[in-house]
């Protein structure tokens, strides 16, 4: 038997010896690329990398078909996988990704969630109605809807003058940045919870939408009883148009997940979830941005603009701007 054996073994040794340098080169390039940015690689390196990747992949195929060196095959397989994720993983720059997100991905995702957006809006409006009617009939309900730390002295016992002062209170601009920062982090956390809990069949998200609405309704009823409705709405909507829109969108993203869990349709549940997760996540990235804008409006614009008309003007402009951006017809 030993006549033919050394030949094939020698061929195997040559196969490996001839290619080992290429594999080492690929490994070196991947190390460099993963350590620094792409700039760490020269143009020649960037051209060489896919070539080396394909050479390694073909060596793997040959080795699998002809060699029983488990160590070699394992090495080639993991090196190929590493190179695969690099070759097929690196696409466009951060700038390109951002431009595409704002120009196409975000509005498209928001449009895809239109049914859930309407549902979330309806839930919130229903909550507002419930809160308003209950508190208008019996002010004792107020404490049930609004946590004491949020009410901050604005309760059914407060006088009309005290309530009015909260709407048009003088401000010297101090502490507004902190307020904006607090509002953003707080609201964004609520929005994230509304999204994540949507996985639980959407129910917690629905409850969250209703309770947010109820809180709103309770406030409106409180100020309505003192004849301050118009003032409250101006105070609320200058940022609320953006903020509540963002919360509704977060709720819509949550409901979208819940819908995929409950009604995956013809797809497997995991496939339906994955298909739902992508636009929902894009919407959530946008929600964070909207809440940042809302917090700046709430922290600065509301405290600095005290005329009702101007507040309504800003509120209407913001809301129309968002609606046009999301739902306007696009060519192509």
């Amino acid at each position: 038997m030993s006549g033919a054996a050394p030949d094939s073994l020698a061929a195997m040794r040559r196969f490996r010896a001839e290619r080992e340098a290429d594999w080492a080169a690929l490994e070196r390039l991947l190390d460099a690329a993963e350590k620094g940015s792409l700039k760490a690689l020269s143009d020649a390196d960037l051209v060489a990398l896919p070539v080396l990747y394909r050479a390694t992949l073909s060596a793997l195929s040959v080795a699998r078909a002809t060699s029983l060196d488990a160590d070699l095959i394992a090495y080639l397989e993991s090196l190929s996988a590493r190179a695969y994720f690099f070759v097929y993983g690196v696409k466009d720059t951060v700038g390109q990704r951002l431009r595409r997100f704002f120009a196409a991905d975000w509005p498209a995702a928001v449009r895809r969630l239109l049914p859930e957006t309407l549902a979330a809006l309806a839930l919130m409006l229903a909550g507002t109605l419930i809160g308003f009617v209950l508190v208008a009939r019996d002010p004792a309900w107020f404490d049930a809807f609004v946590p004491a730390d949020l009410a901050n002295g604005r309760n059914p016992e407060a006088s009309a003058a005290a309530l009015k002062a909260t709407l048009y209170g003088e401000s010297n601009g101090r502490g507004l940045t902190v307020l904006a920062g607090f509002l953003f982090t707080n609201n964004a956390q609520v929005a994230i919870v509304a999204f994540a809990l949507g996985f639980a069949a959407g129910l917690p998200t629905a409850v969250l939408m209703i309770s947010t609405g109820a809180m709103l309704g309770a406030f409106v009823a409180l100020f309505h009883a003192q004849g301050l409705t118009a003032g409250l709405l101006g105070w609320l909507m200058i940022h609320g148009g953006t903020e509540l829109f963002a919360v509704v969108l977060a709720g819509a993203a949550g409901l979208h997940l819940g819908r995929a869990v409950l009604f995956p349709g013809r797809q497997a549940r995991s496939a339906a979830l994955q298909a739902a997760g992508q636009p929902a996540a894009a919407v959530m990235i946008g929600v964070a941005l909207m809440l940042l804008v809302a917090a700046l409006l709430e922290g600065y614009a509301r405290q600095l603009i005290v005329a009702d008309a101007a507040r309504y003007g800003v509120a209407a402009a913001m809301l129309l701007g968002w609606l046009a951006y999301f739902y306007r017809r696009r060519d192509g």
Partner: protein
Amino acid sequence: MAEGRRLSAAVRLLQTPEGVELGLTLADTGQRLWAFLIDQLIIIAALALLTVAALLLGLGALVGGSGAVAEVVAVLWLVGGFVLRNGWFILWEAGRHTATPGKRLMKIRVAARDGSRLSLDAVVARNLLRELEFFLPLSFLFHEAGTGQASAWAALAGLLWSLSFALLPLFNRDRLRVGDLVAGTWVLRSPRPQLGADMLARPAMAETGFRFTPAQLDAYGEYELQTLERVLRAAIPDAMRRPADDPVVVVAAAIRARIGHQGGDDYQFLSAYYAALRARLERGLLMGRRRLDKDDA
């Protein structure tokens, strides 16, 4: 090409556009838990550091009468805390390594299940859902500690309910957590094996003087060959004396008993037998014959 290979339960096959199947190994639940704990520890430490720095700077500014600086410090603290809690995982996993520092330490990474590019959407989705899997059970846990009997039961029910989301990775084949399910991702090992020495470069068969008959080489298949390869790679070639339970001694004895061979140094015998067996099996491969193990006809 996969049919001839033995795949462990944690290996998933990825078909590259070039038509080659690559085996990817799923990360252990333990590895992922450790990675998560490491990341949480880093986040908590950074938060503590941020808080101390903000307190010192803010108080210093207030004492110095500079309210504006104190305000900036307060905002940095608020937003910094938010970004640490929600952005840490997203920013790292959206990067080139697609892994947080904790994951890199555990040598694991996130990848899209369909083998495509890991998108920012997917990274955001899988990490925002941690709110459901980790922070929700946590909130029930702390809620329970603070309140009365009746709500304690409610909190316990809530805890059990929310834990059912957290424990999902234990109950599916691909070890997906809820975030992975929604994002279409999974967590893989990212090993960096070194290429070992060429086994055939070691002993020249002719020099060692071992000869095997075809019948002796037909005693084993690929599985045994690769087991033998592992034993040889782990062994010290020139050991003067080997204890009786040394793998080289044990394996050599087993093979000699099976093929009826005697004499010679155990290590050299195994090296020669490895080379001869591999040559014979590889020749079979070229002819389209695979012999998976000793029981394969």
